[in-house]
């Protein structure tokens, strides 16, 4: 399979910081795009995503009582892929999302010393102040991670 490691434009996100934590504000053109960008932002912060290849697929499902809970639970799943299985995300396609459920397919590969770096260790995605807003231009979301 051809190496697709050089095609990884950064998703639109901004980091804001609290004293002991890392906040991320993500934008999306629509709800699906927001969730996709949130997953990519998480991966971007952790590693140089341009060096990750989309060699394997993982199915992800998440649920929650509202959009914010779905977002945090989805990102908790993405984070577990690394923290639990040593697996890095390259791309993510959201096949279905509503206020209570999400289904997505992630592509990526196992972390390999030499090939990948761990730039920022995200230890947890918290529910604290998680927020999703819809504006005229699109969608924005905010989450706070423990680093």
């Amino acid at each position, binding site marked *: 399979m051809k190496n697709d490691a050089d095609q990884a434009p950064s998703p639109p996100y901004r980091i804001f910081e609290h004293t002991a934590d890392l906040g991320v504000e993500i934008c999306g053109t629509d709800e699906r795009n927001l969730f996709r960008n949130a997953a990519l932002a998480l991966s971007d912060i952790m590693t140089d995503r341009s060096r990750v290849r989309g060699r394997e697929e993982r199915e992800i499902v998440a649920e*929650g009582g509202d959009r914010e809970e779905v977002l945090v639970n989805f990102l908790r799943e993405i984070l577990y892929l690394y*923290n639990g299985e040593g697996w890095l995300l390259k791309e993510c396609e959201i096949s279905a999302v509503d206020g209570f459920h999400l289904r997505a397919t992630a592509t990526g590969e196992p972390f390999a010393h030499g090939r990948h770096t761990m730039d920022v260790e995200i230890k947890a995605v918290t529910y604290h102040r998680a927020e999703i807003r819809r504006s005229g231009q699109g969608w924005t979301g905010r989450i706070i991670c423990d680093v």
Partner: protein
Amino acid sequence: MSDIRIERLDAFRWIIPPTGGMRVPGIIYADERMMQAMGTDESPRQVANVAHLPGIIGHSLAMPDIHWGYGFPIGGVAAFDMDEGIISPGGVGYDINCGVRLMATNLQIGEIKGRLRELVIALFRKIPAGVGSESTCKLSVAEEKRVLRQGAVWAIDRGYGSDGDLPAIEDGGAMPGADPDCVSDRALERGRRQLGTLGSGNHFLELEVVEEIFDRRVASTFGLTAEGQVAVAIHTGSRGFGYQVCDDYLARMVKRSGALDFPLPDRQLACAYLASDEGKEYLAAMACAANYAWANRQILMHWTAQTLEKTLQRSPRDIGMRLVYDVCHNIAKVEEFEIEGRKTKVCVHRKGATRALPPRHPSLPDRYRESGQPVLIPGDMGTGSYVLAGTDKALEETFGSTCHGAGRVMSRSRALKASRNRSIAGEMADRGVIVLAAGKKTLSEEMPEAYKDIEGVVNVVHRAGLSTKVARLRAVGCIKG
């Protein structure tokens, strides 16, 4: 300050009177300068939020190292009624039983001064540290479950240290009620590979030297006999295992928060009644993580002793490494207190706070019966530590609790900016501390200016009577993740 009302109670106490849904007042221990420095920090609001939770007893408390946390503030202490109260994973924190252990030695700094760098390098090689570091001690799931039930006892049974260490560990190194069946497969998987690792961030292993003794009698009881004596401090917790336990139960409790009969001021305060199945299961899983952390620090202590012996070519008896004490500062515990004249069991949450039992408390080992419990307060990287002793006043006012450390004042990115074009390792060396870190950014992120002044924090708890100063130790060598 956030929009809540705070009134001065006395020299070191500030009260947040109950408003809205607050069931009890909040109390913050701090001096005037600290309160002013808090500025727009939202942690007083968080103290007030905790006061909303059912079954809270007395006050929602905060120690002088208070800073913003998720839901509960860091530096927060809150006790809950066993029948009507709640337990909250966010009131314990992600790194369950993050804590500190201090070991004294027979060595004097003069004996090792010329070999410090060699020692720090040897420790850095022996102790796995940093992001994603894995242990040389990998476990089967069956063996891991034994760790979760037995804590430091498991480690000692496998040759890491000796039985004599157990009385010098909070709860004897094994919290009762730990049930591995309450732990997820994910947590078990993460825990298998990380027992015997230091981790990253603010965790460290430090060679220290006794710099100043404030109470010679108590210090000597703790095994700290003279200025110049070498000691070792280890600051770490339950690694990915504890994080996963917290993460799993937070998600479960957030999911069910709509079914609670009270509103949550913040989703991260998600909780369950102590008397409910969910509350009991969290407590049993949390105890597993607490035990994992005690086993972890026990193993790291043993490897430290081995490394010192090998590097210095001295016998164990010669080096004389012995455990002074091991405290946890992220925990919820069922403890007994005298409340309104009656002995009552309550569940005390200490999130960034340390237990501080007074002399003659029944939970203390014989050797500390007259001195009170050793309280270990680590400073920021390379600063050293304070050793304090527990007091009756802490038992009366703060459910036997005191501060836990310095607390961050600077975000990691601000620290990175502030350290640009500087060699933090070089600056530390100029101050007489040899530092080695696994992560290239760790030293910058953890530089001393990024933290509150530990001396100020310790002076407040000392003068407020929550614990008394026994000794101050200065760092001479430090390994970081």
